[in-house]
């Protein structure tokens, strides 16, 4: 086990930030911590890194107790913090070299690692730039490079794509996959469900410091009652069609507003063909028609009664 957390309780005054958290991260996986802002993701990471005191619980990393002076463990950990942690007076190259040098003493090896990190985050054209000259996306990439240049066995990433443009986000996510393929275990936090769905092999959903559910994305989606969501653009939907939809036992919920019909089927039922036949029988002119499978937001919605981004 790379990370093993048991019964972790962390309080800020009267607020319980982590409520008896249990967490296991296995070697070689990308483990996602998903939850809205304030759900306890960053607090959990800070506790795991032994930066924060906590009221109760145990934390092991690489099967050893994690403490502030566990330097041998720290040698194998790379961290990408939510806030960009670089020095404005150092160039892109110097920043990466500096932080890598805190882990790697050998100059030749460090030079190679720094170059690999630059390649990974695609900052080759910016190595002589100072951080203030970089865009938000490039700055985030630099932040990642500084955290992972020493090629640790465990990489902890705390919302590394916050306020990043889509191009940089894709670049970062691809980089994370490459790091994982190269052998790194990754603990990844985000409140962007799409990211977590895209890269994580297992996911833990947190809310108010409590674990809501843990599993693969398929396992998580399988826990909810809702299934496919079908959206059809159609003008002037007749009332008998609406009545027909309402009485369809496979449709859990539906809504028709502004010429758009949204029908949510219960899990395991595929009603797209039936629904299209119903429309065709009345010779209705259809616009766009599309089908979506349940997302982690749907899972979160059903489990907590609120949206992930609330």
């Amino acid at each position: 086990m790379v990370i093993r957390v048991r019964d972790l309780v962390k309080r800020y005054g009267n607020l319980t930030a982590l409520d008896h958290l249990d967490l296991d991260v296995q070697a070689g996986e990308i483990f996602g911590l998903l939850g809205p802002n304030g759900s306890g993701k960053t607090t959990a990471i800070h506790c795991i890194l032994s930066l924060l005191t906590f009221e109760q619980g145990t934390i092991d990393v690489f099967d050893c107790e994690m403490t502030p002076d566990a330097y041998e463990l720290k040698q194998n950990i790379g961290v990408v913090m939510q806030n960009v942690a670089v020095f404005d007076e150092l160039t892109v190259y110097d920043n990466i070299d500096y932080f890598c040098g805190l882990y790697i003493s050998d100059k030749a090896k460090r030079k190679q690692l720094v170059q690999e990190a630059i390649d990974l985050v695609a900052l080759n054209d910016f190595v002589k730039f100072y951080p203030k000259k970089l865009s938000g996306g490039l700055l985030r990439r630099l932040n990642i490079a500084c955290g992972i240049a020493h090629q640790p066995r465990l990489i902890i990433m705390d919302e590394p794509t916050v306020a990043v443009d889509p191009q940089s986000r894709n670049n970062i996510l691809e980089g994370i996959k490459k790091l994982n393929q190269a052998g790194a275990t990754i603990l990844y936090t985000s409140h962007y469900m799409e990211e977590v769905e895209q890269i994580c092999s297992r996911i833990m959903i947190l809310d108010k410091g409590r674990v809501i559910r843990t599993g693969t994305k398929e396992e998580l989606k399988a826990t909810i009652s809702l299934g496919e969501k079908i959206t059809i653009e159609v003008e002037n939907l007749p009332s008998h069609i609406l009545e027909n939809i309402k009485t369809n036992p496979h449709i859990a919920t539906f809504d028709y507003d502004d010429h758009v019909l949204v029908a949510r089927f219960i899990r395991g039922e595929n009603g797209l063909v039936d629904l299209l036949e119903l429309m065709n029988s009345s010779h209705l002119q259809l616009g766009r028609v599309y089908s979506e499978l349940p997302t982690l937001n749907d899972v979160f919605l059903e489990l907590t009664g609120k949206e992930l981004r609330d």
Partner: protein
Amino acid sequence: MIAHILKYRLKCFLRDRQMVFWTLLFPLLLATLFNFAFANLGQIDQYVQAKIAVVDNLAYQQNLPFQSVIEFVSGTSEPLTTKLFDVTFTDAKSAQTLLLNKSIDGYIELNPKIQLVVYESGFKQTIIKGFLDDFVQTETVLTELIQNNPQSVDEDMIELAQVRRDYLADSSSNQANTNPAVIYFYSLIAMTALYGGFWGLRVVTELQADLSPQGARASIAPVHKLKRLIIEIVAALVVHFAIVLVVILYMFGVLHISFGSQWIYVILAAFAGSLMGVSFGACIAALVKKGEGMKIGVLISSTMIMSFLSGMMYHGIKYTVTQAIPALAWLNPANVLTDAFYALYYYDTYQRYFINLSILFAFSLIFCLLTYVVLRRQKYASI
């Protein structure tokens, strides 16, 4: 590892334009302004020449001793700048006009007794009066001697009566040109040294996970915090010591401020001051629990108060504090550093200088220990 951290921290500090401005350019600017403002302060005890008029009447023509004395103190053989009086010979009416026009500081009229007429009282009028009192006293002594005991009077005695001999003389044991304005510059150096606190503050801020993202990253790196603190303090000290030396060299080379002749000791004092300044800032950063703005506020205000009490805004305050509250003078690092330079400048022995230096090193040690005691905590309640 040590060289690696040192190299990059030096790069960071040297490229920090804002810090370099406040710790180097600002003191240089202040020193230049001080130089303009206090340019004449050192000349206050220099030669003062009074402008007088002598009424050239019959009584004056008949008083040969007085004529010769006036001729002596305003003689054409002396350069103008070393004459005691710049004398105009005129009649009584013109002399009055000159006085009313403030063209002269006073005029002398013999009627037949010597009379001094002035329009206002002042430093130069006091000099003229003192000169005349001296002449009248000498003349009276000699006249009485001649009248009462003429046989005892010979040329040697007359010569002796005319001689004024100083038995006490002002001198600087280290040959420095004494100038009260140096206190302003020394306290400015003390302020510059205390500005090293900005570097110390930055070092601690960037080491603490609860103060900066860089601190968080530092805390999870496999480097002992004390080791990191020492390396970074050394880097800050190297930069700030160089800055203080530049300020001193600027004062010495460009503004011609004297530091005595013991340059090794001047450099040692600069080092002690720099160490004290950097450790002071680190200590403030560690002890003040509020945000960075509050830490900077505390650092600047304490630096300015200490510099003020060491004589940076008014040189007399240093003396006043030392006399009234000696403990405060010793507990003020800025005053102790100012005093170290002062001791080098004024005294030939090093006892006072080394006492000051010992206090500065003691301050630095206390500040470093306090900083470490706070920083050794490795976990935080919140970040």
